[in-house]
């Protein structure tokens, strides 16, 4: 049986004025998979997301989403066909309330006329309420997102991502700055999302990655160094050298 790959990066290279941020990167995600991506600073993790979401055009190679190439498509078009992204530092609209932030994220398919003339439909409002419940922000719906705490902003952004209903979620460092308890909750949330959605998580936090119980891809210098379960990764000598640090040195 041929496995269906929802995301397929083929020999992708990105060069910034001669510097290779990505170097012949190959990566495949099957539908419903939860995948963690780790790598040292400068390994190309964020560039890799930029290539998928259309912010950066690959110098070489191609990116396929559901069998169709994403290269050359505009960011908003890629978002509309089902690729959602959460940024490294939380990027929420600080001058809008929690409710308004989520209304934007659930309305991407509404026509402009509707956005101008109508309030969100009952369904959409219900969806917004549901999202606020998931991330525990129901009591803060009228509060400006700018006055939320860092952790709450992270969660709001995750809720905004869910609101877009993407079939592929790209999540960049979701637990940076979260408490241990919040980190656990986030891990559980991401785990529950996979299956129906395909989730790709980038993070540094080893405990968090372990908790995801997913396959791990290690990036280094713009290409894939190693792929496999967390245990396999942690025992791989190459990975230990570049990323985890040599144990015997400690």
């Amino acid at each position, binding site marked *: 049986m041929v496995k269906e790959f929802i995301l397929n990066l083929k020999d992708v290279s990105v060069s910034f004025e001669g510097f290779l941020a990505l170097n012949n990167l190959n990566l495949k995600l099957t539908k419903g998979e939860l995948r963690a991506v780790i790598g040292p600073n400068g390994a190309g993790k964020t560039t890799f997301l930029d290539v998928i*979401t259309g912010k950066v055009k690959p110098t070489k190679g191609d990116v396929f989403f559901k069998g169709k190439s994403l290269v050359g498509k505009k960011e*908003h078009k890629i978002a509309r066909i089902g690729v959602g992204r959460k940024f490294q530092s939380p990027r929420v609209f600080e001058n809008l309330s929690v409710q308004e932030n989520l209304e934007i994220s659930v309305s991407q398919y509404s026509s402009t006329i509707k956005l101008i003339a109508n309030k969100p439909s009952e369904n959409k409002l219900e969806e917004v309420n549901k999202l606020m419940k998931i991330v525990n922000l129901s009591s803060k719906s009228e509060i400006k997102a700018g006055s939320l705490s860092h952790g709450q902003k992270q969660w709001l952004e995750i809720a905004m991502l869910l609101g877009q209903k993407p079939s592929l979620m790209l999540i960049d460092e979701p637990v940076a700055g979260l408490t241990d308890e919040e980190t656990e909750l986030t891990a559980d949330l991401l785990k529950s999302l996979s299956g129906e959605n395909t989730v790709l998580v980038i993070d540094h936090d080893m405990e968090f990655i372990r908790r995801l119980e997913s396959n791990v891809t290690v990036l280094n210098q713009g290409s894939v160094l190693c792929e496999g379960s967390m245990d396999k990764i942690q025992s791989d000598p190459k990975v230990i050298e570049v990323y985890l640090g040599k144990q015997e040195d400690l």
Partner: protein
Amino acid sequence: MKLSKKYISYLWWAIALALFIAMPSLVSDSRLKILGKCLSLGIVALGIDLSWGFTGLLSLGQGIFFSLGGYAIAMFLQLNSLKEGIPEFFGLYGVRELPFFWEPFKSPLFTLIAIWLIPGLIAGLIGYLVFRNRIKGVYFSILTQAALLVFFNFFNGQQKLINGTNGLPTPNTILFGTMVGDPLIQKYFYYLSGILVILFYLFSKWLVSKRFGSILIGIRDDEPRIRFSGYNPVLFKTLIFAFAGCLAGISGALFTVQADLISPQYMRVPFSIEMVIWVAVGGRGTLLGAILGAFFIRLGESFVQGLIPGGWIFIQGGLFILVVTILPEGVIGWINNGGPRNLLTRFGVKRFIATYPSLEANKKEGI
């Protein structure tokens, strides 16, 4: 507490409306004309607030759209007051035939549409080309100013087409069988300016209250994020900039008939920058601030010009510096954010703090 705040704002509105209606019988005809002009400028300021205050598009070329609206109405009035032939000034340059683009302005209906549609379309076109290429921030401002200079030089140099630097005067033209400069007609224009500025204020407020408004603010604060949320910012920016152009055209038309003249001087750079100052001083992103800023600064200008000719420019510069350094949110923004209350606290007036109702009740009864 909240309720009383609402009543206070109703009270302000009632006072403003009463003054607006009673004004023609309180002041002389020439003063009324000044008030009408100031009101009409509130409309262009509203457009600037929508595009700059809400969407972050700082246009330094609103004078283009403003003047286009003014020229549209002035061309109509010139043609409307003719019994035969072509407007007199053409004779000075030996022009015998009406230039082709004057023809449609014989129709009042066409003119009524052209006043807002032509500036709107041009704004939309300029906006689309700029936004599509992802030109943002200060580069956008510079481009709009460059466009302003292009229009200024064109209108200034074309005597044979639109009387060049002399512009088109309106007071001796005829509308509804009366001279446009007639006090009665001017009173109607005063009322029309006031009514339109209120209507457009309410419309703009409605426009930004929905998701569309949230997206505009989103574009201002973090445009790439809006893209990744699945919206095309080019569409929204073009729409709002075109709408600001429409408002500028309407404002220009109303201003022209009360200022007696439209000429390329309204396409000069300082005038377009002045418009931005009105909005900055009044408070950007507040809508009401834009209107009040335009109204009172312009009113102050004509008042001060009477006392110390040439002195206004210093006061205006001072105002702008004051706002940038002390009131970055503008006057209305400062009031909305509790500024007056904070000022009182600074002078030792204690802030009223809501505590448990029972405690307050006890204090009041002196138990």
